[in-house]
Every structure is written in structure tokens, then in C-alpha cells.
């Protein structure tokens, strides 16, 4: 038994190491954002944020409040959002759409709800737009919205969208960012 024991121990340790390696989270997981799942039409709460995605549409061109139009492949997300405890630094600073391998950031080429100020207890509405390559309107997209531009250690609202399913319009005029009116 004494002779077998070191070998047995070796096997146990090797097996343990293999298991540990298999279950270990990827690098950077300790900094990962806290994701609150959401569905269209239902409010979701993340840190200092309550947000409702009211609609997801696609369009071949979008127009802003000044009348400027941009032609491309767009995904337009209508959002109602309010802060919870603090207005300090509370803007919709994070808006990303991940489709397959690629991640897209909300456009700043036109005025939208991206980076809009959020008020505790008083919801505001608007839309954010994502510019996609023309072949990207298929598969499941993951939309993440939140306050911090650097979302490490912070909270985000996450919504899955079937991009093949959403209606594609010729042109969408982005609603001006304003108070939410029922």
C-alpha cells in the first residue's frame, strides 16, 4: 500500500487539476458586468438604472431631429429610462449590440438617446441606433444598455433580439429625446 500511495495521490491531484482547469472562468471574469436580463416591453433594473426597451426595428435609413438622413443598415431601439438614486454622472453611456462575433456601438453620427441624461424617478424616452454591415440582419443579437461607458464591475441591462425577425422599414425618424409621456 505504501508503494501505491504516492502514485494514487499523483493521480488524484492530476484529476483535481484537470477539473479545476475545466471549470475555471476565463480571464477577466472578476471584472465582468452584472447583467440584468430584459424583454421588450418590460422594465429591468441595473445599478442606478431602470430601463424598458419598447421597440426594436430595422431600417435602411434613419433621420435625426435636424432632418439629416443617413443611409446604411440600421437597428433602432426605442428606450424609456430613468435613474434610481443619483443623477450624478447618470447618462446612458453604454449601448452595444453583439451579433455573432462582431460587436457594434450605438452611433453618434446623429443625435439620439445615446449619452442622454437620466433623472432619478423621472423617465425619459428616446432611441439609440446601431449601424451594421448590410449582411448582419440575421441571427440572435445581444443588446446591452447601461450607464457607465466602462462597464467593468458595473451593471447592464441585457436583451436578446432575433434580428431576422424584426421589421425592416425604409426610413425611420429617430424620436427626439424627451420626457416619457404615456
Amino acid at each position, binding site marked *: 500500500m505504501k508503494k501505491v500511495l504516492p502514485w494514487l495521490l499523483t493521480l488524484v491531484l492530476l484529476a483535481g487539476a484537470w477539473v479545476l482547469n475545466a471549470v475555471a472562468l476565463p*480571464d*477577466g471574469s472578476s*471584472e465582468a458586468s452584472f447583467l440584468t436580463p430584459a424583454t421588450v416591453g418590460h422594465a429591468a433594473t441595473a445599478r442606478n438604472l431602470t430601463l424598458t426597451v419598447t421597440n426594436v426595428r430595422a431600417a435602411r435609413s434613419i433621420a435625426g431631429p435636424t432632418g*439629416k438622413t*443617413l443611409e*446604411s443598415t440600421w437597428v433602432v431601439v426605442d428606450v424609456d429610462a430613468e435613474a434610481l438614486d443619483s443623477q450624478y454622472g447618470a447618462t446612458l453611456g453604454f449601448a452595444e449590440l453583439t451579433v455573432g*462575433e*462582431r*460587436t*457594434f*456601438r450605438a*452611433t*453618434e*453620427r*446623429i443625435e439620439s438617446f445615446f449619452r442622454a441624461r437620466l433623472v432619478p424617478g423621472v423617465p425619459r424616452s428616446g432611441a439609440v441606433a*446601431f*449601424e*451594421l*454591415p448590410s449582411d*448582419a440582419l440575421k441571427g440572435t443579437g445581444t443588446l446591452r444598455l447601461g450607464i457607465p461607458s466602462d462597464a467593468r464591475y458595473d451593471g447592464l441591462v441585457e436583451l436578446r433580439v432575433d434580428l431576422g425577425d424584426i421589421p425592416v422599414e425604409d426610413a425611420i425618424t429617430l424620436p427626439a429625446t424627451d420626457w416619457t409621456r404615456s
Partner: protein
Amino acid sequence: MASLIPTPWLITAGGAVLLAATAAFGGLQTVPPKPVPVVSVGEQYSGSDLEMTVQGVELRAKGGNAASFPDKAKHEKVLAVIVDVVNTFDKPRLASGTGTPSPAVDGIHVDGIDEKPLIAYADGSSGSVWLQPDVPVRLVLSWVVGPDELHDGDEVRLTLPDSTHSVGTNVQRGVDIWDEVVVGATVTTTVQEIPASDEDAS
């Protein structure tokens, strides 16, 4: 006691392996550097995970949609390079890079001008230029030049950047970095002067 490890033999064998390996790769002589490819206007070049196609070089009296503003009193002009860019990386990136030389779109360099250009959307959209993955966009790079530095028909040589991508591991953990910037390709073309009256009409 005689050495049990035949050290002299090992050293000789190691040396032989090293020489054989270098011979396989072309010998111990320095390899002449590869010539930098030449690209023409309208031809696409891929470097720094960007596909860049220079469409033209203009000399403008007024900036137009460019981000540079010439001083009218000093009769300054704007040198504008129009380039179509596609970000082939899978995450959105700023068109401008940090440091000089820059690995990004503002690493496009004009021979004779040291500064980095300012970048703007060709269609006049405002805001910093973010390049979305695989979305083509037309940009205007601009520099302010003096009244007599360049003229219509002058030849200019542009260099397009190339760099290596890596993911930061220490202080910049998880950050995408493009560095080791080199000249990826050169473009030689002539400057087209846009008279002030034409700009007003457009």
C-alpha cells in the same frame, strides 16, 4: 571521476543543430528588407485590421466638411485626403489612434507633413469617428497648410500604416492594442485644387 554527461559532445551537437536551422532559413546573412508595396488611388490596402482606399487628395481654400479650419487672414489652405475605410476587426474602434506614429486611420501620413491629420466624416456627421466592424465609411483627413506649400498638380506621397494587434495583459488588461507601427504601403498621387468658388457651390 569522469563526467557522466558528455558535455563537449552536447555543445558540439547543439551548435550543429543551430547552424543547420539557420541554414534552413537562409543562412546567417541579414535578409534585405521587403520592399513596401505601392498602392494606387482607388486601390484597397489592408493594414492594422483596416481596409483603406484612398480616393483622392484635394487642396481646399475652405475646410468644407473637413475638421481643419484654415486661417483666412493668413491665406492658409486645407489639404484633404478622402479615404474609404472598413474596420475588419470584430469590435468598434476609434478612427484616431494614440501616439505618433498612429496605427489607425490618422496614421496615414503625407510626406513632408509631420502632424497627424484631423478626421471627420465626409458627409458632415459630427462627433468622434467610431468605426463599426465591417461597415464601410468615407472619411476626410485634413491638415492646415500654408498658402504656398502645395499647388494644384503637385505630386504627394502618402504612407498607409500597418501594425500588430495584441490584447493587453498587465495594466491594460483586456484592452485591444495596435502597436509596432510600420509603413504598410505608399500611395503617390497629384493634388487637386478646389477653387473657393467651387466649394461655395457644392
